[in-house]
């Protein structure tokens, strides 16, 4: 397992800035993909991104920017929604997985946690976790279940309950835990903060960060909550209208004046801006 920070790279220098894309070993490369739904609706207009092994990469942007579509293009779930990758390639460990069957993508080690939790309501918490093991051929399922309970002790308390009766936070934990049962190399997280109280968002992101460090799981994180996403990520991309408009290491993104304005709601001086001003500014200036 590679370490998420500088440890796995060839020439680690103490106190060097976080490793950027390209320096670490690349796990996933998305090359200029175009995605269409129902053969006519063009949603992604040439998206490229790189996910280095062992890192957390954030994909930010507003509603309808194409973040979820990007994740579904990688996991192969587009096919269930009458969409497909029309151009470009998605290279995962040397293999093009664009338009691959979702089950084979999961077997290759990529699993997507869908937006809005989507737990199996009429199954118990433990049965939800078991569904995650369907592609596994090894017998280490027990150990992995313990591992999930170790990260999410609350799920252990609720393991015999119907998942539908768990709280929103517990359901999000279950959705992540269920995905971990696949033993993924690459975890695609779609809006884990959706509809959760700020305290819970902090708690879940802290666990996500621990999973990244301790399990060496690479994470591609889609979020609207830019502040919390940038607090855990190593590098980030910003999408608008089906294109990547900004990219770079987290420190660089955090200091970018446009990102500050649009996504963090700060002025040049770093003070918080009124939401109304942000909106007005947004209306005037857009990435086209």
């Amino acid at each position, binding site marked *: 397992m590679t370490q998420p920070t500088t440890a796995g790279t060839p020439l680690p220098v103490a106190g060097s800035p976080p490793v950027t894309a390209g320096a670490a070993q690349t796990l996933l490369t998305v090359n200029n993909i175009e995605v269409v739904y129902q053969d006519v609706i063009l949603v992604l207009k040439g998206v490229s991104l790189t996910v280095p092994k062992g890192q957390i990469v954030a994909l930010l942007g507003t509603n309808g920017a194409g973040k979820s579509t990007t994740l579904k293009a990688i996991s192969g779930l587009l096919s*269930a929604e009458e969409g497909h990758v029309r151009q470009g390639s998605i290279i995962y460990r040397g293999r093009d997985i664009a338009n691959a069957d979702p*089950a084979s993508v999961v077997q290759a080690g990529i699993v997507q946690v869908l937006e809005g939790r989507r737990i*199996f309501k009429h199954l118990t918490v433990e049965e939800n976790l078991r569904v995650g093991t369907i592609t596994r051929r090894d017998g280490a399922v027990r150990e992995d279940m313990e591992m999930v309970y170790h990260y999410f002790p609350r799920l252990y308390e609720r393991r015999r309950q119907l998942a539908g009766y768990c709280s929103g936070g517990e359901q999000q934990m279950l959705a992540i835990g269920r995905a971990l049962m696949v033993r993924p190399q690459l975890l695609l997280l779609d809006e884990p903060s959706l509809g959760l109280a700020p305290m819970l968002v902090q708690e879940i992101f802290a666990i996500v960060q621990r999973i990244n460090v301790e399990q060496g799981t690479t994470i591609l994180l889609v979020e609207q909550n830019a502040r919390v996403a940038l607090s855990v990520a190593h590098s980030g991309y910003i999408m608008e209208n089906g294109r990547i408009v900004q990219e770079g290491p987290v420190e660089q993104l955090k200091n970018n004046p446009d990102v500050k304005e649009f996504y963090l709601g700060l002025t040049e001086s770093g003070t918080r801006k009124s939401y109304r001003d942000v909106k007005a500014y947004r209306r005037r200036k857009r990435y086209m």
Partner: protein
Amino acid sequence: MDFLLQLLVNGLVIGSVYALAALGFVLIYKASRVLNFAHGDFLALGTFVAFALATSLRLPVIPSIILTLVCFFVLGLVVERVVLRPLIGKEVIAVIMVSVGLSSVIKGIMYLVWGPGYFLFPEFLPDVPIIIGDVYLSPMHLLGLAISAALLGLFSLFFKRSTLGVAMRAVADDQQAALSLGVSVRKIFAVSWGIALVSAVAAGVVVGSITSLSTEGLSAIGILVFPAVIVGGLDSVPGAVVGGLLIGVLENLTAGFIDPLLGVSLRSVVPFIVLVLILMMKPYGLFGTVEIERV
């Protein structure tokens, strides 16, 4: 009193068979939201195939039944692959109409091969009545009850304990989420068709051994499965069991108490009257899925 007890026991035996037949129907509905109108016809076809193996090919009865069950599991996979998979993503009503068409085709084949007559399944149990208290039971009744109970138990264990069984329930719950975890939804559909046909044929063979074989009589069980399943709730396995037992008991009680009074046979009508009454009070059936809502 003895008469009532006898009717109840007979009703439970035949009801357990309906439950078994209903299970397959529920399974397909749960996995793919398809109402399989050909269920009764598959049941009849399977029973006739087992009959043909035992009589024309002169195989022993029990191996020919087992062979038929295996063949029908495979047939389920084939039907799913050839007839239903091209329709994935189409309207559910299209798939339902295909099942209506399948029903006619299978019925036609059975009339061509076996005609409309009645046949008797070869006896494979001694016809010595077993008398418990005041209740009379034939060995076949007991065996039928045992087979149904064993298969129902086996299936519920499968859904509770095996990963594939749990995944089948997961697909019924949220197909896309199951897909995202690497569950092959196609495989699940295929397996549910396989299991559904096995349960149908097992039920058909039991009924055929207790009464007689006829194309019309056996495929009519497909119609009786509807009240059993709808009473229990379309998507509930325990509901199918309770619904099946209820319909079986009602049929027998009607035949025993009401028919002699009126001089006409109402046994096949009463289940549907009960169906209407229950649906008026509980539109989702007795055990139908209640949407889980958190407040």
